[in-house]
């Protein structure tokens, strides 16, 4: 098997790194280029960077920043935020970005997702799916545009798979930024539904959380957010990354 992967999932807002809690209250972290230089030295397996301003404010992709970022990034890089056309995919790949992350586009323009997967290979198209529990405790798809999503949770997973994406990142909105651990049950359900690789995201607070999600659910990849940018919960900023051999023992 390819090796299990652990990756920081970073959020960009107006050229700055931020960190949210349950998708709210973005707090300033620092300069993205400095961060990526540190992650190179820490030997992170992969990096996901999501521009939350590009999606929300309907802004275009900050290609200038991404060019500088990609030039310092010596590991596979996935980017999401404001991607709207096949031409956007092309431009991102030209900068040296490995995978394009799509979220709202899955609903807004599914044909673009399909076309990009066909044209560039589906390993380069990463679907990001955000899931939130309803008041009654049911899993529901979280929409960034406040638009009603017509799918049930399971129906949406099937729908996304039908667009031929190569990989799925599942983020638990309830866990995101809380340090309380991944939603293991959610990841297990999705893993049983799909054949493509899954990245678990949202809630990681300890190295044990990473071990648990990678080994109790048998998925290939785990994303970390707060743990990669803060010293501890409610403590100051620190760009950091756990040592691979402290988490992954069996390779």
């Amino acid at each position: 098997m390819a090796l299990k992967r652990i990756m920081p999932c970073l959020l960009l807002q107006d050229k700055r790194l931020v960190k949210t809690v349950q998708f709210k209250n973005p707090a300033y972290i620092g300069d993205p280029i400095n961060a990526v230089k540190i992650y190179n030295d820490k030997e992170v397996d992969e990096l996901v960077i999501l521009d939350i301003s590009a999606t929300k404010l309907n802004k275009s992709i900050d290609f200038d920043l991404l060019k500088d970022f990609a030039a310092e990034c010596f590991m596979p890089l996935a980017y999401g935020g404001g991607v709207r056309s096949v031409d956007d995919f092309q431009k991102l790949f030209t900068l040296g970005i490995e995978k394009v992350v799509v979220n709202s586009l899955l609903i807004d323009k599914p044909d673009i997702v399909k076309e990009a997967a066909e044209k560039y290979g589906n390993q380069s198209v990463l679907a990001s799916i955000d899931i939130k529990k309803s008041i009654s405790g049911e899993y529901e798809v979280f929409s960034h545009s406040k638009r009603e999503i017509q799918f049930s949770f399971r129906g949406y997973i099937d729908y996304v798979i039908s667009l031929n994406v190569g990989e799925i990142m599942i983020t638990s909105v309830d866990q995101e930024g809380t340090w309380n651990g991944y939603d293991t049950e959610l990841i297990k359900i999705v893993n049983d539904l799909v054949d493509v690789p899954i990245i678990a995201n949202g809630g990681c607070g300890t190295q044990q959380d990473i071990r648990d999600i990678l080994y109790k659910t048998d998925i290939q990849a785990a994303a970390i957010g707060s743990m990669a940018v803060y010293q501890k919960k409610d403590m100051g900023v620190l760009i950091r990354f756990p040592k691979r051999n402290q988490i992954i023992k069996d390779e």
Partner: protein
Amino acid sequence: MIYIVDYGLGNLSSIKNMFKHIGIRDVKITSDKNELVKADKIILPGVGAFDNGMQHLKEYDLIDVLNKKALVEKVPFLGICLGMQLMTRGSEEGKEKGLAWFEAETKKFELPKGYKVPHMGWNYVKAKKNIKSFLIRDIKYRFYFVHSYYVQCDKDEDVLFETEYGNKFHSAIQKDNIIGMQFHPEKSLNFGMDILQQFAKL
């Protein structure tokens, strides 16, 4: 001067960026055969389908100059990913003839249940022969792979590294001055930097 061959396939700046990062600045990207004549070292990258790759090399009229540099002048020559596969006789992926610098075929993965194609992600390599260059200094060296086809050499002596993904395959090959790597050193952190540094010193 190290030349990176631009034949219209994939992203080339990552390789140049990594060279820059490790302090090697005499690197140029070109698609001009008249420039390539001057190369001290050549890198042939590439992603995508085999036939498309060979057709692009023909369209850019690069095959003669590449043959001359690799086989006659014997400059250090590194093929990465599709660039490695193009150095074989041909691929199960297409009908075009390859450059045939290696007695090798490019084959489609046939994998045990549970293994996905493409082979995407990090994996280890195991050095197969004692060579002066491309030492893997630590068995925990890992590299980033993305590929659906793999190279199989006829002769063991051409195999540099092996990697296990369902079955063993030849993840790097070498014949004199010509080297092929299935993985992407330019995306493989310090491990890839070490490989490119070693290539630059050949």
